[in-house]
């Protein structure tokens, strides 16, 4: 069969039910194979939209997302989603067309060195050298993308090689001698961690996106409740621990709760699970958690002691390790009473410093109120896909996620324009869920073309634009740290999102009154098809609380 037909067989063998892409010259053979391959193909309007859609699909389902693009500009348009997937450990296979082998390196039409451009931002990548290796490479790519610490894998296929006739034999196993992720976790280290936890008086569990990637949310709850350990999550970890649990401290980090950050600051033992001590978590590194010893559970050995020295490192899969840790911990039967003083302190912070904002006295919609209204209107059950900016932080603070994969956003790279296409992918992956986008008026415009895809493919996402007419987060920093000099952050009055939505064939709505907002949101969600709501909010509202740049957690402001 043709190599491209073998590609289809491999995709099916990997269980791929949908791909996101856009055809062009160099991947014409692949698209010819898609014509009757029986795999759903979602035609996006921009390759970046396809890449983020594949990420959204992967984050919502836990399966590997697939995005396709042609050579040159098609492939370079994927660079942002590839980098995004790398930073947030998202399993996505990107398949790009490449010019014919005789044109390689000659500046042929639509030629770009896709492999070279993407090397620093991939987990791994392949350039097909011979058509016979295509089936093996596809399966290796899926294996690498989904195992260990997940991440993006790029496969670049020259156009002529994809047309070759090859004998196709199903590939039954992959062997990669240089790639053997550690899964199990060292038992001795796990026992040591249990001992440390049993004697800790001010412990905190600090969980990140790794818990979600390893499907370890249930294990995390079991571990946390094996005693009464306080739990905080990173932005990427939200939903790994129920936001309505009595041991939940809220998110930590730059815009986390005071309770979570103060607890980290005073903790004597911090158990990090699938988290990487990012600078948005630690604030001033030299003053981060000054009294704590650290247990660091991570599948990626390069994360251990990268930013904060780990006293007890455990390399392996979080789910495996948490299961074993619970057993070891229970065997020690520590006295829960030793945590009583710690909880008294935590409860003090909780009652003294809840998340708060000053609500309007008239009908004006405060951005925080929009998130609370969305929470109420959806009974806290929707999948929330966020763009990047102030709205993202407010959504993280005020929508109390109770299950993993309910919160999808771009954390590490902070990619504006992620939200709408990622929601499209998430909705395709979980069609029975209500999928809502929270976007800013700035970020939504970075991939708004995907409204056309959603309408054409009947992917009924509900988009809520928190419209303050600013690049809000940059404005906030200019206000607070750059003497109020608002340099190029005013977005003006355009476009008219209602008319724009209608032009795309979606339903366009505008909300300006907080008194009817919950009902308005309910009605928007009940409206069939794609809905875009332009929600006018307070123009200059700041995201608080905040660890100012370069400051320590205990010095939070706002």
């Amino acid at each position, binding site marked *: 069969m043709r190599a491209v037909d073998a590609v289809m067989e491999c995709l099916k063998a990997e269980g791929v039910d949908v791909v996101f892409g856009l055809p062009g010259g160099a991947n014409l053979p692949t698209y010819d194979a898609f014509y009757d391959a029986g795999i759903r193909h979602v035609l996006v309007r921009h390759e970046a939209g396809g890449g983020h859609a594949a990420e959204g699909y992967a984050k919502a389902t836990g399966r590997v997302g697939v995005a396709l693009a042609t050579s040159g500009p098609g492939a370079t348009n994927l660079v942002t989603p590839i980098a995004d997937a790398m930073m947030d450990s998202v399993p996505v296979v990107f398949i790009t067309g490449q010019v014919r082998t005789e044109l390689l390196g000659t500046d042929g039409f639509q030629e770009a060195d896709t*492999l070279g451009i993407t090397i620093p931002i991939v987990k791994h990548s392949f350039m097909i050298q011979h058509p016979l290796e295509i089936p093996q490479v596809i399966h290796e790519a899926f294996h690498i993308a989904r195992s260990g610490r997940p991440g993006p894998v790029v496969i670049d296929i020259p156009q002529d090689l994809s047309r070759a006739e090859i004998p196709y034999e199903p590939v039954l196993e992959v062997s990669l001698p240089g790639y053997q992720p550690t899964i199990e976790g060292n038992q001795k280290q796990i026992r040591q961690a249990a001992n440390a936890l049993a004697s800790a008086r001010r412990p905190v569990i600090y969980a990140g996106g790794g818990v979600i990637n390893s499907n370890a949310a249930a294990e995390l709850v079991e571990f946390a409740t094996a005693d009464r350990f306080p739990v905080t999550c990173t932005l990427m970890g939200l939903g790994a621990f129920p936001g309505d649990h009595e041991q939940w401290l809220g998110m930590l980090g730059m815009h986390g709760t005071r309770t979570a950050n103060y607890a980290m600051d005073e903790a004597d033992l911090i158990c990090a699970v699938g988290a990487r001590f990012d600078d948005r978590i630690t604030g001033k590194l030299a003053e981060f958690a000054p009294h704590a010893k650290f247990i660091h559970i991570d599948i990626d050995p390069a994360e251990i002691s990268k930013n904060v020295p780990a006293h007890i490192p455990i390399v392996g899969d979080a789910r495996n390790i948490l299961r074993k840790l619970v057993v070891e911990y229970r065997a020690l039967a520590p006295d829960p009473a030793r945590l009583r003083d710690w909880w008294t302190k935590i409860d003090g912070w909780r009652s003294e410093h809840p998340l708060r904002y000053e609500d309007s006295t008239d009908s004006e919609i405060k951005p925080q109120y929009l998130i609370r209204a969305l929470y109420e209107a959806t009974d806290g059950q929707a999948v929330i896909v966020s763009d990047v900016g102030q709205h993202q932080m407010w959504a993280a603070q005020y929508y109390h996620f109770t299950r993993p994969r309910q919160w999808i956003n771009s954390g590490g790279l902070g990619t504006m324009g992620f939200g709408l296409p990622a929601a499209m992918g998430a909705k395709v992956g979980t069609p029975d869920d209500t999928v809502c986008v929270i976007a800013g008026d700035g970020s939504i415009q970075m991939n708004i073309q995907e409204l056309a895809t959603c309408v054409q493919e009947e992917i009924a996402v509900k988009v809520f634009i928190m419209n303050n007419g600013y690049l809000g987060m940059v404005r906030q920093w200019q206000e607070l740290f750059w003497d109020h000099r608002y340099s190029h952050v005013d977005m003006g009055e355009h476009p008219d999102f209602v008319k724009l939505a209608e032009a795309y064939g979606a339903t366009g709505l505008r909300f300006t009154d907080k008194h009817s907002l919950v009902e308005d949101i309910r009605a928007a969600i009940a409206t069939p098809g794609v809905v875009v709501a332009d929600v006018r909010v307070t123009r200059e509202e700041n995201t608080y609380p905040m660890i100012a740049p370069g400051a320590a957690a205990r010095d939070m402001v706002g």
Partner: protein
Amino acid sequence: MGEPGTKAPLSLEELDAAVGLRTGRKHVLSILVENRPGVLTRIAGLFARRGFNIETLTVGPTDNDQFSRITLTVDGALHPIDQVTKQLHKLVNVLKIRDLEPAGTVTRELALFKISAEAQARSEILEFTAIFRGRVVDTTKRSITVELTGDNEKIDAYERVVRPYGLIEMMRTGEIAMARGRSET
């Protein structure tokens, strides 16, 4: 203080101070890799993105034609290399890395020296070359080309000795390194 993200100007001293832990010694990294296109780029890229300078680099076949051996040296006094070593381990095409301790390692480098050698200097150069166990591989009436192997200190020393005679050019391969004793590198 120039706090990150704020308008406070950052002094050059602060910039200099803001680097990671340095070991202060030379590191010889011996890296066993799959023999495939692009592997060297991936490895070199991990150094380049941090602004690290690779001092010497050799790539060659091993006893197994599926694998190649990359030996590279980096100055741990200039660059914090711990994190980059961990990242190297993560590359799918990398099978094994050893950060070789100088005391437990045999290192060799090959160098070619083209030295200006007028009649009166010629015998002195040949004498030094013999002391360093070099070999003359080419000559003209006014020059000598010498081949020399050894660890890099020996080659540095020979260079110091012959430079005054007029060093026309010099080429060095960079070190290869093998662990001492019975076990594999």
